[in-house]
């Protein structure tokens, strides 16, 4: 009898416990997932070490940082459930993919994300030719740069032309990734070099451009320049870093943020510095924050608070002082002056940036297709 009564009480308690989440009024969620399908190891470490604790302290929200892919997140968001992705870090092209895949994104304005008022409005309208329609807010900007070891190079080249003319000075110490490597730096290093000698001609159709004497000249210069590189060419970026550490490589075009972050982590020499050649080092890469429109209202409210916090001055300044990425908001005047000893100011970057339309797929394919010619 006593056993039966005990069983009845256990059953009752279990039923109430199971029913409670349904019956209880829904409170604001304290755990949110931010999905990042764009960043590398540096950003993953940065989030774990700095952003997540700061969000917890300031908003009382436990952020989970999820490394993912666009395709996976699009599928998950179509049938959104808590814990699958409430805030997303996306490239402009990804935003277009999301929208065209039928995944609605919340329109972000100064009323739901007040700090977005500090972003240059042109970035809220369109980027990389994508009509953003306010579906995302700019979080960071970055670029490749001429990374050099100031221990060996006191007077880095100010332009690609100067770099090419002074190539004998750096013979055996120029870092180039193999043109058939997986890393995008494999084609990016070559494309930027070619652009310096071709500039406006980079807009010509590839078939026409390939026959142009100016292109042939630039291509021959590139082949010649490659023979002055540290040989064998680095298989992938870790080899390039190792060559920098060994003192074999003194200068290379590579991602500014990752290189300088690595120097701080001790995986690159501490004397690494970045400069921008006057013909450009890269297009300016941009990372955006977006919130799916179809998530539940209480999650959306917290997600928007998190986005707003990530655009706060404190977080945006930390982006450059810790990650060497330029802020998405216009707060350059608040950045500590010491940061500009490591990286050029954003206006220098903006002036020299290669127009996006010149970073072309057919040119990338041409470089990959002729990779053999570029391996001494």
């Amino acid at each position: 009898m006593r056993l039966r009564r005990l069983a009845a009480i256990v059953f009752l308690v279990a039923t109430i416990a199971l029913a409670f989440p349904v019956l209880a009024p829904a409170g604001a969620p304290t755990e949110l997932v931010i999905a990042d399908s764009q960043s590398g190891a540096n950003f993953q470490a940065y989030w774990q070490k700095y952003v997540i604790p700061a969000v917890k302290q300031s908003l009382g929200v436990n952020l989970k940082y999820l490394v993912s892919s666009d395709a996976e997140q699009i599928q998950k968001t179509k049938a959104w459930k808590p814990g699958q992705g409430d805030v997303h870090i996306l490239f402009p092209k990804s935003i277009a993919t999301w929208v065209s895949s039928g995944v609605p994104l919340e329109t972000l304005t100064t009323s739901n994300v007040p700090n977005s008022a500090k972003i240059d409005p042109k970035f809220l309208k369109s980027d990389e030719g994508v009509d953003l329609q306010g579906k995302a807010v700019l979080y960071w900007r970055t670029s490749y740069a001429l990374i050099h070891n100031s221990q060996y190079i006191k007077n880095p080249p100010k332009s690609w032309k100067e770099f090419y003319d002074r190539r004998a000075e750096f013979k055996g110490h120029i870092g180039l990734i193999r043109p058939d490597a997986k890393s995008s730096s494999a084609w990016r290093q070559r494309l930027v070099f070619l652009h310096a000698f071709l500039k406006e001609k980079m807009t010509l159709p590839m078939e026409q451009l390939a026959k142009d004497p100016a292109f042939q000249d630039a291509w021959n210069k590139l082949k010649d320049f490659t023979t002055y590189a540290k040989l064998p060419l680095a298989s992938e970026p870790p080899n390039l870093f190792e060559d920098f550490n060994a003192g074999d490589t003194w200068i290379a075009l590579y991602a500014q943020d990752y290189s300088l972050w690595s120097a701080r982590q001790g995986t690159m020499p501490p004397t690494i510095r970045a400069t921008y050649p006057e013909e450009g080092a890269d297009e300016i890469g941009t990372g955006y924050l977006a919130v799916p429109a179809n998530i539940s209202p209480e999650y959306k409210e917290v997600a928007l608070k998190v986005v707003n916090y990530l655009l706060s001055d404190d977080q945006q300044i930390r982006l450059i002082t810790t990650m060497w990425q330029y802020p998405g908001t216009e707060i350059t005047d608040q950045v500590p002056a010491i940061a500009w000893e490591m990286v050029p100011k954003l206006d220098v970057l903006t002036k020299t940036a290669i127009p996006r339309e010149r970073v072309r797929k057919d040119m990338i394919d041409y470089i990959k297709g002729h990779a053999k010619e570029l391996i001494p």
Partner: protein
Amino acid sequence: MTAFWHAHKSTLTTFLLLLPALIGFFGLFCYPMLLTIVLSFRPEGQTVGWTVENYTRFLADPDGQWVILLTFILSLGATALSVLLSVPLALILREKVSGHRFYRLMVIIPLVIPGLIGALGLLLFWGPRGWFNLFLLQVVPFVQRPVAVNYTIHGLIMFYVWLYFPYTCVTTMSALESLDRSIEEAGAVSGADRWQVLRYIVLPLITPGILAGSVLTFMAAFGAFSVPLIAGGNYRPLAVEIYKEISIPIPAHWSAASAIAMVMGVLQVGFLALYMRFVRRGGSAGGVQ
């Protein structure tokens, strides 16, 4: 139905027990293999039609021939060195020298370290400013400049040996430790010196163990990917070539990659068949003479 079950109970039970394994075998091995074979004969980027161009282009290309030769040089070099390293090491560890358990653990360490991490560590160690060269430059008087190890064929073979020699070493140690010591004692009592005991008794008896281990080392070295990708420089064996065909061009050259994979598979299986034949002969010819 019940009658059918009772009549074939044993056969059906066996079939049901085997079913998960069969699904796994066909799904995870036969299907991908069949797909690779079909793709290797498809014109690039096409889903219909047949061609042998993917094979002829690779095999007729001097670069393709060099890649095959390089793969054999690296894997055979690594296998031979692994045997040369494993036998003396196994003989020493067999004597239970001081700290032998630690050394045994050290032998298998490369097996548990991911290839990519191992390759990066080796590059740092053997680099121009790595410990090896720092030691040589500071201690050996006639060494004036760093010795080139990274991104060379001999360096790559050394890296392979470090990564894959445990397969040979572990089987050699196992064969040696299962050897009855009384046989060696009988040889010694009959007047054989230590060298003769080793040459005519021990080595022939452990040869099958050495060869079995060296097969594993060869196979692993033949299919090596992460080490040559990171530490190979311009020396890129078959596995890296396959990866290159898939990861670099857009769209990926799946047919070309499949053809190279088939060439690699055929060479590997063919060489393995020859090797096993040699092992069987060696095994039957081995023993106390």
